[in-house]
């Protein structure tokens, strides 16, 4: 337990990438913050159409929340296996994470298509435009994360847990846990107050 930065990576280039990725995550956080501000600003703009109370389903929001939280833990277990140098463990936990993330995306797509079918699509009102932009942007990030998990599954299978692959897996973990933090904002700002209104 000496200076942690001294033996994080043997390769300074990989360490620089960790910092670069962190800067990206912070700028992504600013994008989401602005989408949240836009959503709150447009919350009253329902144009006589559906209100948050009409379109949000607490049970589905809860299921989505649990899937994403569970996927964060399983990714954590993949990280534990990575530190323990267990290739099989990493592959198994990553695969479980992928299934949980895919379940989340499935629920979100069924929510979106259901709303659009009921005439509550993004073109209906300012409120719905802001809702689809905020939650859709998060969903796109999770989908990108799923693709990245597949890429990492392939790289780990072929190349093993070499320093470059380990470093990428660490950054994917930051990305995945970051998206769960954004989701805390979404259920606390969008779904819970919406269902109560």
């Amino acid at each position, binding site marked *: 337990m000496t200076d942690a930065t001294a033996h994080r990576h043997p390769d300074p280039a990989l360490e620089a990438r960790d910092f670069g990725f962190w800067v990206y995550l912070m700028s992504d956080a600013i994008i989401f913050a602005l989408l949240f501000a836009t959503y709150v600003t447009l919350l009253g703009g329902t144009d006589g159409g559906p209100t948050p109370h009409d379109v949000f389903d607490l049970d589905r929001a809860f299921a989505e929340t649990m899937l994403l939280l569970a996927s964060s833990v399983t990714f954590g277990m993949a990280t*534990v296996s990575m*530190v323990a140098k267990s290739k099989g463990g990493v592959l198994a936990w990553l695969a479980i994470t992928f299934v949980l993330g895919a379940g989340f995306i499935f629920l979100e797509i069924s929510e979106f298509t259901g709303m659009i079918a009921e005439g509550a699509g993004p073109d209906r009102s300012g409120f719905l435009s802001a809702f689809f932009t905020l939650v859709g942007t998060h969903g796109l990030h999770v989908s990108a994360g799923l693709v990245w998990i597949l890429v990492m599954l392939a790289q780990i299978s072929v190349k093993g847990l070499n320093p470059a692959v380990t470093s990428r897996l660490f950054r994917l973990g*930051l990305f995945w846990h970051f998206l769960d933090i954004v989701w*805390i904002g979404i259920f606390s700002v969008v779904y819970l107050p919406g269902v109560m209104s």
Partner: protein
Amino acid sequence: MSLAHKSPSELRTSYLIGVTLALILTLIPFAIVAFGLVPRETALLIIAALAVIQVLVHLYFFLHMDPRTAPRENILTMGFAIVLIFIMIGGSLWIMLDLHHRMML
């Protein structure tokens, strides 16, 4: 941001503590809304407070942002992002809600 000095079992314990706290902090606000336990204004305050705590829990246990071991430049970047977020969310809401008020929307 630093995993190298942690043993697998230490790391596993840290994730399990994190998820237990996260689960509690998620279940409370959902229960409040599902069962209508408190008035709306109180509920919004509790939801906001628990969300902030849960973000901190995730940062510490899942993103390994331990202020004692995280690299200084990461902490500085995060501090800068938080300042920007406060200015931009606060400024947007201030201006737009004032506009709503003046337009009597």
